[in-house]
């Protein structure tokens, strides 16, 4: 199946000289939820702003459903909804008015039934006549989602949708995202929260310093980049690592009572069983074993640290 978004060699250099995107290549599949992870200034917002038409690319191409975002901007933008990071809303407009405005702006004819359903789905209908300024932060976030969905887009961009929201609302947001995904909407979200990416995304992209370091499924990332740490507690202390174990990535604790083996996961396999056999053969007596597996967060932190 053709990707719904295809990004090739995308670069963005701002007037200040800041290189926000460096040769980004990415294909996003129809109906998937992809999370872009990265620290502040990584280029996540610039990437989605470029696809949406807010930022002009310096070079490279972006196609949405086969259409170029510059020469066919009407077709591409009709397919896209954007929920920005900031709560940017006209303070004196009503919820109903601002959502209806968004629908019209995207060229869709007036459809009060659809807007009513949308507001009900987002638990906003009882606030439809309220001015936006009277709403809580969480409600404003929902209004932004309603605006982005007002023209029934195929693709929804959410720029840090849960930044600064409480746990309950965050879970509500995740449910909204899952519901939209089940209706076939392709979702691209940026986030700082690894937990969020783990919870809702099919694939995770890691960005840092304007580069897209990797884009893979969560399980693949764990498989390819995950590490296991085996901590072997010894009954009696030892002064040095037995020579038969030197070929493995093993460290000895200062008190000589622990051997720490850092294992990389390759094709789902590790050398843990071989290490254990070698320890037994070397005559060391094992008191206890502990295995720790790296989380997506550990992998993310390692990736970003190495790049920096």
């Amino acid at each position, binding site marked *: 199946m053709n990707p719904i978004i295809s990004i090739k060699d995308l670069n963005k250099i701002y007037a200040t000289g800041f290189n926000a995107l460096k040769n980004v290549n990415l294909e996003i599949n129809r109906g998937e939820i992809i999370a872009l992870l990265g620290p502040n200034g990584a280029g996540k917002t610039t990437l989605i702003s470029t696809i949406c038409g807010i930022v002009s690319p310096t070079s490279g191409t972006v196609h949405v459903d086969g259409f170029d975002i510059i020469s066919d901007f009407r077709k591409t933008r009709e397919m896209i909804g954007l929920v920005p990071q900031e709560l940017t809303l006209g303070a004196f407009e009503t919820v109903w008015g601002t959502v*209806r405005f968004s629908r019209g702006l995207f*060229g869709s004819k007036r459809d009060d039934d659809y807007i009513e359903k949308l507001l009900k789905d987002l638990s906003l209908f009882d606030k439809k006549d309220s001015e936006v300024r009277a709403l809580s932060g969480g409600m404003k976030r929902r209004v932004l989602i309603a605006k982005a969905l007002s023209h029934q887009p195929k693709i929804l961009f959410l720029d840090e949708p849960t930044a600064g929201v409480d746990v309950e609302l965050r879970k509500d947001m995740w449910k909204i995202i899952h519901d939209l995904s089940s209706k076939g909407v392709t979702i691209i979200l940026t986030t700082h929260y690894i937990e969020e990416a783990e919870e809702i995304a099919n694939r995770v992209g890691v960005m840092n310093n304007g580069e897209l370091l990797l884009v893979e499924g969560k399980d693949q990332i764990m498989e390819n980049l995950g590490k296991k740490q085996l901590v072997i507690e010894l009954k009696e202390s030892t002064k040095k690592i037995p020579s038969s174990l030197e070929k493995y990535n093993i460290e000895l604790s200062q008190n000589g009572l622990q051997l720490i083996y850092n294992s990389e996961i390759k094709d789902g396999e590790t050398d843990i069983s071989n290490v254990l056999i070698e320890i037994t053969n070397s005559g060391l007596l094992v008191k206890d074993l502990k295995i720790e597996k790296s989380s997506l967060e550990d992998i993310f932190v390692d990736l970003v640290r190495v790049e920096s």
Partner: protein
Amino acid sequence: MNFVAIRIIYLHEMGRFWQTLGQSIASPVISTALYFVVFGSAIGSRIANIEGVSYGLFIVPGLTMLSVLTQSISNASFGIFFPKFTGTIYEILSAPVSFYEVLIGFVGAAATKSLILATIILATASLFVDLNIAHPFWMLSFLVLTCIAFSLFGFIIGLWADNFEKLQIIPLLIITPLVFLGGSFYSISMLPELWQKVTLFNPVLYLVSGFRWSFFEISDVSVGISLTMIFLFLSICIGVIGWMFKTGYRLKQ
């Protein structure tokens, strides 16, 4: 052409006008009435007729132009500056609308507001003086063209400004002096010869003169020149906005 978007931008902008209807109407009515009391009655009664037109009547076109120019600039500049200021401009930039459709929506609404305002001013003026319009078609044409031209100019200011100070500075320091010195309240024939020549460099003179001709068939410069100057100003504004849109000046990064 995304007509639905043009319509919704237009209605959205007009919505702000209707929301502050009392203020929108009261302000021009009060200021026009004050001008007539001060210039028309108190001072005007001591000024001789100008080319056969009483002073109170003579200032009506200039007074209308003063409000139309300042309000066109104010409405259009604020209309596009406010979304930039609040950040809601992201929605317009990411919508399937061309810059020209955005322009028609914003400038159309600003020009409409100015036209409504001009109608209110003329209606208020008719309470003080016996207003007869010699060429209603040309009066309306000059009025509409001026509303559009200065709304376009206001739109440029709104795009250019990145703070409230800049938004105010051009109307305050350039437009208002030009309007006052452009023959709004006098005929340039009343000025010394040197200042008459200097005044010819003031674009507002051509607007006021053409507009005044449509009322009383008297003008400081020929009607043809007035029309040419308005179209020239319109063309320059459209050219500048076209460049701003093409380069994304102060809109896109």
